[in-house]
């Protein structure tokens, strides 16, 4: 391999490393905070960056057998009201990490915070 080819190879590898580093920095910088995903009957309806929430707000999700009123604040999320009979979802309270989801079985609602923990699953 000629000296010129070696110089070109080195330059190309250096350029690729710079580009990759820039991509990594961009991706890490854009993560912001934990992401709360709201599913209805297994289908994702919303994906909310909790770290980017500045003003609290509420949204209503209509499910299989009724509705759930969800409150979103900076870094946390909960079901404030629901018309299900057991109110398990309301009683779960706020969640702010990925350990336990909020589940409403009657209305088939699930709120899960994703990519927030090194724990892959929880036996319970």
């Amino acid at each position, binding site marked *: 391999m000629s000296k010129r080819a070696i110089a*070109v*190879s080195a330059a190309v590898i250096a350029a690729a490393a710079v580009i990759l580093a820039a991509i990594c920095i961009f991706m890490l910088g854009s993560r912001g905070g934990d992401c709360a995903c709201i599913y209805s009957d297994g289908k994702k309806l919303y994906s909310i960056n909790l770290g980017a929430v500045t003003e609290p707000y509420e949204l209503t999700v209509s499910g299989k057998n009724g509705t759930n009123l969800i409150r979103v604040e900076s870094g946390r999320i909960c079901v404030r009201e629901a018309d299900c009979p057991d109110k398990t979802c309301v009683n779960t309270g706020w969640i702010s990490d990925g*350990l336990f989801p909020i589940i409403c079985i009657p209305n088939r609602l*699930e709120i899960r915070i994703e990519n927030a923990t090194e724990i892959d699953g929880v036996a319970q």
Partner: protein
Amino acid sequence: MKKAFFLFLAAAMLLCGCDKECSVSETLFVFDTVLTVTLYGESGTQLEEAIDGIKIITDSINKCASAHNPDSELSRLNSSAYNCDIAVSETLYEIIKTGLYYSELTDGTLDITLGYLTEKWAIGTERFSVPDEEYIGKYKELDGYRAVLTDDENRTVRFSDDKIRLDLGGIAKGFAAEKCDEYLRYLGIDKALLDFGGNIVAVGRKSEDSQWKIGIKNPLDNGIFAAVSCENKSVVTSGNYERYSTLDGVRYHHILDGKTGYPSDSGVISATIIAENSAEADCLSTAVFVLGAEKGKSLIESIDGAEAVIIDENLNVTATSGITDDILEIL
């Protein structure tokens, strides 16, 4: 110039690692709980098809083994098997035989014939009530699992007492998880995480460098008490916090002790089993919860390939000899 382009491509591939793995995740509502299935592989289409297969497996097991659905095959069996040989499906027969095996192995500590009691208690539902002593006395007179007679050749089930009712709640989820695990391996999918309402199956390894890390819920709050590192294992916990009802300030949890007829009072509030077979882990976690820490540990030590992490009401931990420091991390 062409040479430089290929050099650039080679360098980019080297730096990016050429990782082709993709994942598909789906949430299913079956067994009165939530199942979360995450599959990993190189073909998204294959993973999507595998999810469809898992839906079919779990739906069919739920339809045949649910005690709450009056139209299920189990409900029909419960209402007609007294003194009569009833032919059942292959799936239901296999669940019943597995349940009977663990009922015998645990000397009735896990008993799949608790239906007569669980129907009356109805813990965790609006129908909850505390049965009177007379009712519980009638249950205690029964022969339990010994009153369930099976015929392998004709695949029939018969009850020798009119009060026998099967309740497969202590095994159905684990059985379904095991069948899904077998199905994924048949398809060649060797990395997956199945969460069947807290019954976990960790298929394969998380990565070349690391195992799956499965948390054990703190039985006293919403945190994680400990974590278990594992691969190709099922991790199942029975806890007194899962489902309960409260009356006059007394909390009644849903794990009944067939020998007393009341919710188990062994001092254990969380029993976790780590085993290769999820149905086994499901059955044994209930048995250990009811047996208590000392007897539960002895039982699990006698079973090849199974390990236990048992937490009592003072948060003391009892673990079997195979649970080493690199497997269990108390958080």
